[in-house]
C-alpha cells in the first residue's frame, strides 16, 4: 500500500483521439465538448486536467468513469478498451464535486457501500471501513449521517468511500471546489500525501491553477475541448507552449511583434519601430512570423536609475502601484505604449523609507532573454 508512485510502466488510463459531441439544441451546430483528446496517464501518477469551465475536462473525466460515452475514439483503462464496459464494471472510483454521499445511510455504510455491493464478508468490511476512515482522519464519525458532517468532513468521507475499493484509478472532479480557502489549501497537501501513501493513479479535474501546480505530477491544460499542453507543473509554468497556457497559468505580460532574427533558441522580436526584444524561441518561430513574447511579472527587474547597458532594457513610466504585502505590483507603460506589469518583492521595504515607487515616477526595467518566451499563437 505504501509504495512510492512509479512513473514508469503501462499507462493506467489512455484516451485515444476521443471526441464527445452533443446534438445541436436550438443552435445550428452540434456542440463539441471534447474535440480529439489524446492522453496517456502513467501508473501511480497524480495527473490533473486543468482548464476553464467548459473546456471539456469534466466530460473527459466522465468518459473515463463511464458516465458519458465517447462519440468517437476509445478510452483504455490498464490497456483494456472501455467502450462496452458500464461504469459499475470499471476499475475506477470517483470523488464527486458535491460528494454525492448517500443521504439515507450512515457514514460507515456509505464507506462500506462498494464492499457491500461486492459481497465482501462482514468482518473484512468492518476492518477496511475502520482503516479507510482512519486514513482520512475521521475515525469517530461512523454512526453519523452525512448531513451531520461539515463540508470538509463529507469530502473526506467521499474520498474514503472511493479509496476503500482499491481502484486502479481514482477520479476526482473538483473535489475541493466547495471548501473555503484555508481548508482547501490544507486538503491539497493532504490529498497529495494520501496519493503518495496509497500509490493509486489520481486523475484530478480543476479550474484552479494553484491547486494543479501544488499537487500534480503532470498537468494537461485544456481549452475548448482540446489538450493544449501536457507537462510537469514546472514545464507548464516556465515553458508554456502557447499564449493560452501562458495566460491561464499564473500572470504574464504579452508583447506582440514580428521576428527579425533567429539564432538557435534565441530570437529577436521587433515590438515597435526601433524597439526590439530578445527572447527564447522554443516554438520554432521563423523570421517574419507574427509572435507574442510572454514575460512573467516576477521575472522582470526594476532599476531606479539607468543601469549598465544590457539586453531587454527599457525606460518606463510608473502608472499605478499596488502594495499587496509580500510584494508590490507595479503597472508600467513602455515607451511605445505597451502596458507591463511587474512584481517587485518587498525585500527592503523596512530598511528604506523611499523604497516604494509612486505613480508618475520614471524607472527602467530589464529581463533575461531566457525569461522572455516567444510564442507563435
Amino acid at each position, binding site marked *: 500500500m505504501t509504495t512510492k508512485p512509479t512513473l514508469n510502466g503501462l499507462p493506467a488510463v489512455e484516451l485515444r483521439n476521443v471526441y464527445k459531441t452533443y446534438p445541436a439544441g436550438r443552435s445550428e451546430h452540434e456542440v463539441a465538448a471534447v474535440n480529439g483528446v489524446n492522453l496517456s496517464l502513467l501508473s501511480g501518477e497524480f495527473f490533473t486536467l486543468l482548464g476553464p469551465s467548459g473546456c471539456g475536462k469534466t466530460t473527459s473525466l466522465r468518459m473515463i468513469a463511464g458516465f458519458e460515452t465517447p462519440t468517437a475514439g476509445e478510452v483504455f483503462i490498464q490497456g483494456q478498451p472501455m467502450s462496452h464496459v458500464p461504469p*459499475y464494471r470499471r476499475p475506477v*472510483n*470517483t470523488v464527486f464535486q458535491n460528494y*454525492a454521499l448517500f443521504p*439515507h445511510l450512515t457514514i460507515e455504510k456509505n464507506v462500506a*457501500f462498494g464492499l457491500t*455491493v461486492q459481497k465482501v464478508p462482514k468482518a473484512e468490511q468492518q476492518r477496511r471501513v475502520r482503516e479507510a476512515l482512519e486514513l482520512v482522519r475521521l475515525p469517530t464519525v461512523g454512526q453519523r449521517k452525512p448531513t451531520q458532517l461539515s463540508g470538509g468532513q463529507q469530502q473526506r468521507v467521499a474520498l474514503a468511500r472511493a479509496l476503500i475499493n482499491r481502484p486502479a484509478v481514482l477520479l476526482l472532479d473538483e473535489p475541493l471546489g466547495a471548501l473555503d480557502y484555508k481548508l482547501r489549501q490544507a486538503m491539497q497537501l493532504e490529498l497529495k500525501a494520501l496519493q503518495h501513501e496509497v500509490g493509486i493513479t489520481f486523475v484530478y479535474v480543476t479550474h484552479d491553477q494553484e491547486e494543479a501546480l501544488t499537487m500534480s505530477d503532470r498537468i494537461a491544460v485544456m481549452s475548448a475541448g482540446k489538450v493544449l499542453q501536457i507537462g510537469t507543473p514546472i514545464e507548464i509554468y516556465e515553458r508554456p507552449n502557447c499564449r493560452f497556457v501562458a495566460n491561464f497559468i499564473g500572470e504574464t505580460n504579452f508583447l506582440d511583434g514580428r521576428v527579425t532574427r533567429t539564432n538557435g533558441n534565441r530570437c529577436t522580436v521587433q515590438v515597435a519601430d526601433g524597439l526590439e526584444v530578445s527572447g527564447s524561441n522554443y516554438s520554432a518561430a521563423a523570421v517574419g512570423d507574427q509572435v507574442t513574447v510572454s514575460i512573467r511579472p516576477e521575472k522582470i527587474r526594476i532599476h531606479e536609475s539607468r543601469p549598465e547597458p544590457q539586453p531587454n532594457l527599457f525606460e518606463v513610466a510608473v502608472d499605478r502601484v499596488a502594495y499587496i504585502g509580500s510584494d508590490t505590483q507595479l503597472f508600467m507603460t513602455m515607451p511605445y505604449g505597451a502596458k507591463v506589469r511587474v512584481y517587485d518583492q518587498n525585500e527592503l521595504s523596512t530598511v528604506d523609507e523611499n523604497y516604494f515607487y509612486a505613480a508618475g515616477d520614471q524607472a527602467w526595467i530589464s529581463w533575461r532573454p531566457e525569461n522572455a518566451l516567444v510564442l507563435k499563437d
Partner: protein
Amino acid sequence: MENRKRIAVLMGPPALFLLFLFVLPLAIMAVFTFRAGSFGAQREVFTLDNYREFLANPSYLRLLWRSTGIAFIVSALSVALAYPLAYFIAFRVGSRKVILLTILVIPAWTSYLLRILAWRLILGSNGVLNSILLALGLIDEATPILLYSMTAVTITLTYVWIPFVALPIFASLERINRSVLEAAADLGCAPWQAFLRITLPLSMPGVLGGFFFAFIPTLGEYVTPLLVGGAKGVMYGNLIQDQFLRGLNWPLGSIMSLAMLLVALVLMALFVRVVRVSDLVEG
C-alpha cells in the same frame, strides 16, 4: 416578536378552520357516543350501552377489518401501479415532464362520480369488457360477476387513486440528486441494484405519502361500493352511513366512525415507525 406575530398571522386562519370544522365536530361526535339516542329526551341520557352494542355485534368489527384489508390492497395496488409511472416521468422523459404530468392529472378534473359510473359501463353485463371477452370467444355469455363485487370496488378505487399516489412518489423521485445514482454505479451497482439500494429507499417518503393518500379515504369510502359494489361489495363506510341516515342511530354511528379513525391512526403510526420516515426525510 415580529417573527412570532408573522407566524400567528400565517397560522391563524388554517388553525381556526381546523379547530371549528375538524376538532370541534370530532369532539361533538365523541360526546355523542355516550348519548342514549339521537333525538329528544334520550339525547340527554348518558350511557355506555352504545359501546356494548358495538362490541356485541361481531359483524361490525368484521366489516371494519375487511374494509381495512380492502383499503390495504387498493393502496398497495395504487402504489405498485403508480410507482413505474412516476419513475418514468421523473427519470425518462426529459423536457416532456410537464405535459405528461398534466395528462396524468386531467382525469381528476372530471367528476369523481362520473368516473365511477364509467366503470359500470366497462364492467357491466353489456359493458365493454364483457363485449370484448365475448367477441374473443373467451366466454360464452355475458357475465355480470365483474360488476357488483369487491373486485369491482378494488379496481375502481385503484383507478381513482393512481394519479394522487403518483404525484408524491414523483416529487420524492425528483428530489433525488442524480449524482447519487452515478455514485452508486461508480461503486459497482448494476442499475437494478442501484434502484433497490438507493432510489427506492430515498423515494420511501413519497411511497408512504401516496399509500396513505389512498388508504385513508378508501377506509371510509361509501360512494364507490354503493355504485359498483352491490351487496357483496359493502364497506365499513356504508355501515356508518346507514347508522346516520337510515338507522338514525347517531351514537352507534359515532362509535363506528371513531373506531375507524383509531384504526387509521394506529396503522399510520406503525407504518411510520417501521419505515422510520424521519430518518429518510432528515436525509
